[in-house]
């Protein structure tokens, strides 16, 4: 108990002073939490403050953000060639930067990261692990991590997970993400190790293989992407599996839009309370967002600044307006390839002022992620249709076409929606049109053969990984 107090003090001091944290100290704190849970069954008073920070006071929040921004900018000006140039050209003094003032700094876009990846790398730290974005929206970008980051992030993640009761001894996490997603695989593996949980990395294997792991393999946590979750639900139903066949207690998805209909079906099929849909992105790790019971996306305040920027003006989005998430991970949480004001192009809606009444009301929030900015459809009257609206409508069709395969475009001022025949099987085009109208979408439907389904919309579940037992592996054998 005395040592735990010292460790907490060291962590708090490091966070306050903005010095590099000791990953070993955080890892030992995870052990302390596990011992606490083993003895008491739950953490003590104010456990949430330990992970979320004392961020309920907006003034304190603002002050912490200003200090963290200055600290981060000072380091980038000295160590990152890209940002040294950018700050100079924007005539910015890193020591005087604040939340309001950073709007003078242009956002960093993915093209910057792809064109000059070496310029983003800080010169004072050796690179250790390279990871690439999945490239579902274009060419992948490469991000290098330092050994410090690879050790620190899972330790902080494990600390939060065990304190929230999301993971612990006795759990077995099955990961059905692309095995090439080095960050996600590395972080989840280390987090499991620190939390005393089992870890089964399977990748995007045939759904039947994954179901074996979930049912007979006794997984208690599934980490995957929404599109693959859709495939799993379909495969489980086809195999006659239901809630009693699984030991799952948590379903965690990310990286794509999760529709309400798929989430409901998954909870019923796998026997869990709800599907966790946190926000994260390779380029801006370790900054994350958490979804609450009212479907807000609450953005982590401790490790980074999240702005919601109007898509047209570049100014902070007004309440009710759509904006793109612009994220700045703080030092000392981001070390090797830091970004400053990175425009994720992930679109969310700004919530009305003072509207939060959820269990995470102390943490600022936006709406759920509504899709990528370049996939928005602009109708002539000024109305904007988001990918989420389309996916929600398609995935709630009676045929339950999970994951949604579609192509949408504006033709003659109307939405032309292309769907595979299986999406409206047994329903009819006219009935489907009424279904979309009821969802607020006036669309012209185009139905194509099922063989074209995968080419309509690429999903992360398309990054299949073959096994010797699967048919694909035998081709050419």
């Amino acid at each position, binding site marked *: 108990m005395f*040592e735990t107090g010292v460790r907490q003090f060291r962590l708090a001091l490091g966070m306050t002073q903005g010095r590099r944290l000791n990953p070993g100290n955080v890892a030992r704190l995870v052990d302390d939490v596990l011992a606490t849970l083993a003895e008491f*069954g*739950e953490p003590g008073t104010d456990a949430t403050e*330990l992970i979320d920070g004392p961020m309920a006071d907006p003034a304190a929040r603002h002050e912490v953000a200003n200090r963290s921004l200055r600290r981060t900018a000072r380091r980038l000006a000295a160590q990152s060639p890209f940002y040294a140039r950018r700050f100079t050209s924007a005539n910015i003094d890193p020591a005087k930067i604040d939340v309001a003032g950073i709007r003078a700094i242009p956002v960093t876009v993915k093209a910057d990261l792809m064109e000059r990846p070496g310029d983003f790398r800080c010169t004072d730290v050796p690179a250790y692990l390279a990871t690439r974005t999945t490239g579902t929206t274009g060419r992948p970008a490469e991000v290098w991590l330092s050994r410090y980051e690879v050790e620190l992030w899972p330790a902080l993640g494990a600390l939060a997970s065990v304190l929230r009761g999301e993971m612990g001894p006795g759990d*077995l996490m099955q990961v059905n993400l692309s095995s090439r997603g080095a960050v996600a695989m590395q972080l989840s593996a280390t987090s499991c190790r620190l939390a005393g949980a089992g870890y089964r990395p399977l990748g995007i294997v045939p759904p039947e293989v994954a179901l074996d792991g979930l049912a007979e393999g006794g997984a208690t946590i599934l980490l995957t992407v929404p599109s693959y979750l859709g495939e799993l639900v379909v495969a489980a139903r086809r195999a006659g599996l239901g809630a009693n066949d699984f030991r799952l207690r948590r379903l965690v998805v990310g990286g794509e839009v999760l529709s309400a209909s798929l989430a409901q079906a998954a909870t019923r099929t796998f026997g869990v309370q709800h599907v966790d849909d946190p926000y994260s992105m390779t380029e801006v790790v370790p900054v994350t967002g958490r979804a609450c019971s009212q479907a807000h996306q609450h953005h982590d305040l401790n490790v980074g600044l999240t702005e919601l920027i109007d898509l047209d003006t570049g100014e902070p989005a007004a309440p009710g307006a759509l904006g793109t998430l612009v994220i700045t991970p703080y030092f000392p949480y981001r070390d090797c390839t830091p970004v400053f004001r990175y425009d994720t192009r992930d679109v969310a809606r700004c919530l009305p002022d003072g509207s939060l009444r959820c269990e995470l009301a102390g943490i600022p929030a936006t709406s759920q992620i509504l899709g990528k900015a370049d996939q928005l459809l602009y109708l002539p009257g000024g109305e904007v249709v988001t990918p989420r609206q389309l996916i929600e409508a398609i995935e709630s069709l009676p045929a339950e076409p999970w994951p949604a395969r579609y192509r949408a475009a504006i033709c003659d001022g109307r939405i032309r929606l292309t769907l595979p025949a299986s999406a409206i099987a047994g329903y009819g085009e006219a009935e489907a049109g009424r279904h979309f109208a009821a969802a607020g979408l006036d669309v012209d439907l185009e139905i194509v053969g099922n063989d074209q389904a995968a080419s309509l919309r690429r999903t992360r579940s398309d990054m299949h990984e073959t096994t010797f*037992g699967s048919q694909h592996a035998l081709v050419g054998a």
Partner: protein
Amino acid sequence: MSASIFPIPMWEQSLTLFCVILAGTTLVCAGALAYFRRVRMERPPVGTFNTRDVVILLIFIGILPFVYGWLPDPFVTCVLAVTFASALYIGYRPLLGSVGIWLAIGLLFGLNIWSSHYVMGTIPGWQLWYTEQSIVVGLSAIAVCNLYLQGGMKLRHVAWLSLGLAAYDILFASYYPLTGRLIARYITHPLTPVMGMRFGEVDYAVGLGDLLVYSLFFVAAYKAYGARAARIAAVVIVVMGGFATAFIPFLFNFTNANLDILIPAQSLFGPVAFVTYLWMKRHYGRERTMAEYLASQGGTAAAPQVEQAPAPQPASI
């Protein structure tokens, strides 16, 4: 430490000391148990008592007499005031609230400081002083006992602590009698860490440390294994902490009539407490955790379900 001051017939002295120890121990143990069963202290978000804490505690206890010996008396009083105030505040704020507990602490300390200066010339004065002293010390022992036990201290830790204190007592009461000198120097000052009474010309007292260890052993046994184990612990406390401590000077006549004597109570109690713990462990098995104890009482925290994850099956490749 149990101290009797001024020689009178040894059997009478021993019997009176036994009664004083018994009364003090009974009050503190019963109070600690009642508190443990009824009051939940706030605890930090993370942290539970572990073996290293026992070591840290023993080191702290080992250093403390030297610090007290080095400090002038007014500073010792200040240190003791902070220590007692902290214990009382942590222990009784849940019951009295912030205002109530500070008023109570002010009243208790004020009376104690006043009586230390103005009423000590007479036997009733001494008795009033001891009564106040005993209230402060008893309440503090109850609070600290619960702070440790509700913080996750187990019977195993108490047993090791007792064993460590046995060595400490032998060292500092017999070979290097620092504790006795400290008590002789500090007695009559405010907030002396003893619980006792004066009868006639003789003082009978039991130290705060002894009371704390007895109550820890008693309540930890209850938490770990239930009421039956607590009764066994009570017998050990009465026999070794009370009877043996009080009557060993009488039986072996190793007292020096010209000096205040200090009986190293923990050197008698510690080894037996440790053996009792080993027996309980062998007889009853694993200790209950705090969560399991609360669950058994219909408390709020559920017993942790520490299931062993099944061995991961190989992926089909």
